[in-house]
């Protein structure tokens, strides 16, 4: 039994002179939720397409569920995927579109109504796809990906076009699937979503993997910040010098003191301020978010 859902070694794709994906190396353990992030054009979709056998790598190798990626017929019956948005036949209903794919894959067509109910499309099953909103199309794409009751689910921007309630529903759905043992490999621009649901992360920049590992490990690399605001604005610089005097770098941003220190040091800062006669109106340790880490690592202001 393989322990890895995805494993790639030196996976590369070259278009002309441009390396869309360059020597990518990463692993996704079975039963985890892995976020796949990177700026637009960083090679996420190209990588997913290579993993699904839609495009041929120019170099490197990989395995999906223990099978080599140059034999997609050996593993795709256990993989659900939605790549680059939903794509269906406009003149067919949502249910009929799923029947086409279920028939093709040899899956049970009796499960289609239940799947549509699960993604919140049950009452529009027989409406033509062309009448669906963007969010409904996205839900149908996710339902199609769930057809094989997949061991591995690969979703490319699954929350595009969904309203906040829809995003939350999909988040809950993915969490449930992960609890049931499905490995989820998901790319999204909504980094806060990825941060909330993913155990591990693969980060791409200009076709290269710049991080692959546990999300927590990535966040730990970033220095936490304590944000403190003085009741009397004239004490701001005095508070900054107290922090710097204790050996922590800091700066003043928008009238608040930002000191690079762990959350535990907030109590010490509070005492130092009290002893110096400074009254604080705000004192909050802030853990680095994935978004901040992402911008810092990718050097991208998207």
């Amino acid at each position: 039994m393989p322990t890895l859902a995805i494993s790639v070694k030196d996976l590369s794709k070259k278009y002309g002179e441009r390396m869309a994906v360059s020597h990518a190396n990463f692993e996704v353990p079975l039963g985890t939720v892995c976020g796949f992030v990177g700026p637009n054009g960083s090679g996420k979709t190209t990588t997913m397409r290579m993993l699904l056998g839609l495009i041929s790598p120019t170099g490197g190798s990989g395995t999906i569920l223990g099978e080599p990626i140059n034999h997609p017929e050996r593993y795709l019956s256990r993989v659900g995927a939605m790549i680059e948005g939903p794509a269906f036949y406009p003149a067919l209903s949502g249910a009929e579109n799923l029947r086409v794919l279920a028939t093709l894959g040899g899956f049970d067509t009796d499960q289609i109504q239940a799947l549509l109910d699960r993604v919140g499309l049950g009452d529009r099953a027989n409406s033509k796809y062309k009448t669906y909103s963007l969010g409904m199309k996205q839900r149908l794409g996710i339902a199609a990906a769930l057809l094989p009751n997949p061991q591995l689910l690969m979703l490319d921007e699954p929350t595009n076009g969904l309203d906040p309630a829809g995003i939350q529903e999909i988040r809950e759905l993915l969490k449930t699937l992960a609890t049931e043992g499905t490995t989820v490999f998901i790319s999204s621009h909504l980094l806060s979503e990825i941060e909330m649901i993913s155990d591990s992360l693969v980060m791409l920049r200009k076709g290269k993997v710049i991080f692959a590992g546990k999300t927590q490990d990535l966040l730990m690399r970033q220095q936490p910040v304590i944000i403190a605001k003085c009741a009397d604005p004239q004490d701001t610089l005095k508070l900054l010098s107290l922090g710097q005097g204790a050996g922590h770098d800091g700066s003043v941003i928008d009238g608040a003191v930002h000191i690079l220190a762990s959350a535990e040091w907030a109590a010490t800062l509070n005492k130092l301020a009290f002893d110096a006669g400074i009254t604080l109106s705000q004192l909050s340790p802030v853990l680095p978010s994935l978004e901040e880490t992402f911008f810092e690592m990718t050097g991208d202001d998207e």
Partner: protein
Amino acid sequence: MIRVFFAEWRKLRRPTLFFGTMGSVMGVTALVTSLLFLLLDSARGNAREGRMITRATLEMPHGLTIGFSSSAGLLGLVALCVFAAQTAQEYTYGTLRNLLVRQPKRLTLLCGKFLAMKVFALITVIFSAIVSITLAFALSGKAKIVTTAWSTSDARSALAHTFLNVFISVIAYGTVGMILGLLFRSPITAISLGVAWLLIIENIIAATVKNSGKWMPGQLMTTIASGGDINSSYSHAFIVLIGYLAVGTIIVAIFFRRRDVSN
């Protein structure tokens, strides 16, 4: 491959496409057959390119099927449009990636689709034959044609041969459509190029270059539908056409198997 066939059939059987196509086919056949009988005594001819098919010819055993075989070119164009659209739309809708995730064996996918479209084409030919033969009997009285020979075993044999030839011709048109659909990956481009070539360019070449009809795919498909004609023999048309289609099919199959699916 059987799963691909039934998946494709789900798309082909949708009412707008199925009944729309069958309606077109029956309309085209009815028009061609009606003109054949109603313009029987017209000095401007009653068949393709102003040719005259006489009452005596129509009274022969194979006279029953002349309207049907004369419809083959238009039936073929319908098949070309359906095959090209059903193939190329997978690229324009982006649905090819879904199909290939569910059936990664690309040639199996291609063969299954082709088989389903062939069955669809077979149904169009059956509808066309029924309409043409029914109309032939219905209009024979008005055209003062003696139909005794149409009920003989020779007539049944001629009907079987014509049916087979029209079906081969229609499948050939459809194959051209599928080849164009795979090459251009756009239904509009594939259909417009196919129709322009068959209806305009070939006719210009045939009118300007002597004996070129023997080598033009559209002319060859018409020759097969009519069981051989003045342009070339049936066997010549069959062999040359099969050669063209085999080369075209092999080329697009290689493309389809190797080309990255990036849309």
